[in-house]
């Protein structure tokens, strides 16, 4: 990441946060608004961060993955289905059902990725076509099963969508409390501590995604596996001549990538909302790809880029609280559809390359032939 791109990311985030603060500052303390924006950003960035990690694993090993969207969607559905099944049919506890749902989602993502790997590595199918297959397949399968299982008369759930076992609970990370303990009665300090508590009240997948950004960076740049993965994505023949099994390395990375997308899918139905809607991933997989590209195929870069999209989404969510305070000259901000466009507009701006070009792995998208 160069300063130009980090600068752009920082600038956009400051502008987005500043807008909300400017509108709401007469009614809510700015610190509270910023904490709320940060908390929402960290929440909604989850699938984007995981999606871009998915892309990083695949593309660093040389397999283009435009099927992240489909992997997420399939995982969202199968994770949700598993949790409901365990909870309502087998009467398992809600928490257990949810955790098993998350594992099922990861498995579903991994299986979808295995299909992509099989097509693009073993059969050397064009990887864009392979990814498209994944996306279409996911839409078809989830739409079909959703209808068959839940809405058709005579289906298992008899035409009624059953109650979901709820959502994964908030984990209170005591970051703010730790600060409060050393504040010693300073009011300003306690305000910050409260704000921090709010920011770090996140759910497990959101927190896990932060950890996975760090883990991915470590694996990619500091371990034997990462070095070999990048070698295979840059110059597979060179890797082959020093005894690295190119196709095996690619298979494993693509499946790991699929599992990342699977975890992102679990976020939608097990952590965000307790239901499944057809097409509910709503382009997040593609936005993740944009974040990955803008972040130059690095975990930190991609996460920072994903924050921009997250902040744009947080803007939309937080503006709803201050709707009536929006000044007349900013009336367009009252249109939540307009604000909702922001992430997609940002994607287009970023991908034009105006903010600096990035370089993909040299062998990205090329099947390896001895």
């Amino acid at each position, binding site marked *: 990441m160069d300063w130009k791109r980090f600068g752009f990311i920082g600038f956009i985030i400051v502008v987005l946060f500043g807008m909300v603060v400017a509108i709401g500052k007469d009614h809510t303390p700015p610190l509270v608004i910023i904490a709320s924006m940060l908390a929402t950003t960290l929440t909604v960035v989850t699938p984007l961060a995981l999606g871009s990690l998915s892309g990083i694993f695949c593309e660093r090993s040389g397999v283009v993955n435009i099927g992240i969207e489909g992997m997420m969607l399939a995982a969202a559905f199968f994770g949700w289905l598993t949790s409901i099944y365990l909870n309502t049919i087998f009467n398992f506890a809600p928490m257990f059902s949810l955790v098993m749902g998350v594992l099922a989602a990861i498995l579903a993502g991994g299986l979808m990725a295995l299909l992509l790997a099989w097509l693009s590595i073993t059969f050397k199918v064009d990887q864009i076509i392979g990814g498209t297959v994944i996306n279409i397949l996911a839409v078809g399968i989830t739409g079909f099963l959703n209808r068959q299982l839940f809405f058709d008369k005579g289906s298992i759930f008899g035409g009624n969508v059953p109650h979901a076992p709820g959502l994964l609970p908030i984990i209170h990370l005591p970051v703010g409390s730790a600060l409060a303990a050393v504040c010693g009665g300073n009011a300003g300090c306690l305000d910050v501590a409260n704000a921090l508590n709010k920011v770090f009240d996140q759910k497990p997948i959101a927190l896990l995604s932060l950890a996975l950004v760090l883990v991915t960076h470590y694996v990619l740049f500091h371990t*034997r596996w990462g070095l*070999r993965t990048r070698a295979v994505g*840059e110059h597979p023949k060179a890797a082959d001549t020093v005894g690295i099994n190119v196709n095996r390395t690619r298979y494993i990375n693509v499946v790991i990538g699929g599992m990342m997308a699977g975890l992102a899918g679990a976020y939608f139905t097990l952590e965000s909302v307790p239901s499944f809607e057809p097409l509910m991933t709503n382009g997040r997989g593609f936005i993740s790809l944009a974040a990955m590209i803008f972040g130059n195929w690095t975990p930190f870069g991609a996460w920072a880029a994903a924050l921009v999209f997250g902040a744009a989404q947080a803007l939309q969510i937080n503006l709803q609280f201050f709707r009536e305070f929006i000044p007349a000259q900013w009336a367009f901000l009252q249109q939540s559809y307009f604000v909702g466009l922001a992430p997609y507009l940002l994607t287009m701006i970023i991908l034009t390359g105006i903010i600096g070009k990035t370089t993909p792995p040299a062998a990205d998208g090329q099947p390896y032939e001895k």
Partner: protein
Amino acid sequence: MPEAELVLQARGITKRFPGVLANSDVSFDLRKGEVHALLGENGAGKSTLMNVLYGLYHPDAGEVLVNGAPLQLDSAKDAIHHGIGMVHQHFMLIPVFTVTENIMLGAETDHRSRPDETPLARLDRREVAARVRELSRQYGLEIDPEALVGDLPVGVQQRVEIVKALYRNASILILDEPTAVLTPQEADDLFDIMRELTRRGVSIIFITHKLREVLAIADRITVMRGGKVVGSALPQQVNEQQLASMMVGRDVLLSVTKTEAKPTDPILQVENLTVRDVRGLPAVRGISLEVRAGEILGIAGVQGNGQTELAEALTGLRRAESGSITLAGRSLTNASPRAFTETGLAHIPEDRQKHGLVLGYTVADNMILCDYYKPPFSQAGVLQQSVQDAAARKWIEAYDVRTPSPYVAAGKLSGGNQQKVIVARELSRPVKLVIANQPTRGLDVGSIEYIHKEIVAMRDRGVAVLLVSAELDEIMSLSDRIAVMFHGQIVAVVDSRKVSREELGLWMAGAHPQAQA
């Protein structure tokens, strides 16, 4: 000298590919601490034999012995394990990795100092870098372990490859055409390195088709042709001419025979030309030159001194920042490549696969790329296939292109034959100027001889020729006048009969006292 022990032996290796007998009962051996040159034209079977020795191919018959023990080599890993290292002609290095990362790849050391085990252990770059420094000191191979390989000049990248093999404890090194990508100075450096390596007990197989180098460095020479060993020799007992005949199977003319040039009118006139390179930096800085009909002007220089950009500007492929280009009296500064072609330019480009041919097109299509849109090849916008077919067959015959048919994809041909397709297309037209950029790079002796003859024949027909080459021998034997390029400028223009190799080398290095002018 007492005969050293045999470290590597190949006995009766036979390797068959569909339709080709690539190696037929080939035997080859290597003694400890010697440089054994394997000489042969492209397609003679050298690479096949080396791939067998490196475990990449499994021979149909024959056996490989390392230190006297027969071995089953199933993969490069096996070969590495038995101390065989290979430096490929196209380097197996990753440009975006550091030297250290490239060297340790596949044989990494982690913080628990366990080589080649747990995938998620933390890499110990410092330890490897220290080892690399030690090896480079020991063998006199200067490299910076922290540098990015992509930033290094080709000669240094080659050293990285050698250290990569030594890091894996290689005691037998296979160098596949190692000088093909090097400048004469870099090649001399490489020979020093090879001597140092052999002094320390490393044994080297040196694969090449350059005769002068073989005589300069080899302890023994084995010559291959058509998949068989056709002879061996000691460098003291043979000369270039004899080696060339063994390699090609007939007598070859190594030096170009040409008569005195009879230059007439100026054809190409370049005034104060300035050109920038891809990164936008000035690559050609105010060059003026003139090429007359009936003469060959050679541009000598170490790769990367602006020759590429000069040739591109002179063919309409790159914008000229300032200055003028006049071809046959017509001002063509920043004109389109087609304007150049139609004015009478023939261009043999530097990279034949990238800029000379459409590899996926047939030979016949490639042959009419310059004038497919004009009669007789095109009538009212429709290609005349029968005309094209007849022309292609005529040229394949006339220019000795070895192809099964005119309708084979150009990418399927050998390098020499690909170059002949380009030569046929460019030189069969009525041209006034030939710009030949590295016309024989990577070609075998037979093809080089052929291309040289064609270029001289063009000159004798009164065509102006601008020859750009990094091969000093080529420049010296073909050119009538030689212009030396250094840092984007022409530092000397000399008569080729009155200049020595050493003098030119000094000009090229920018060291000649007059180069300061």
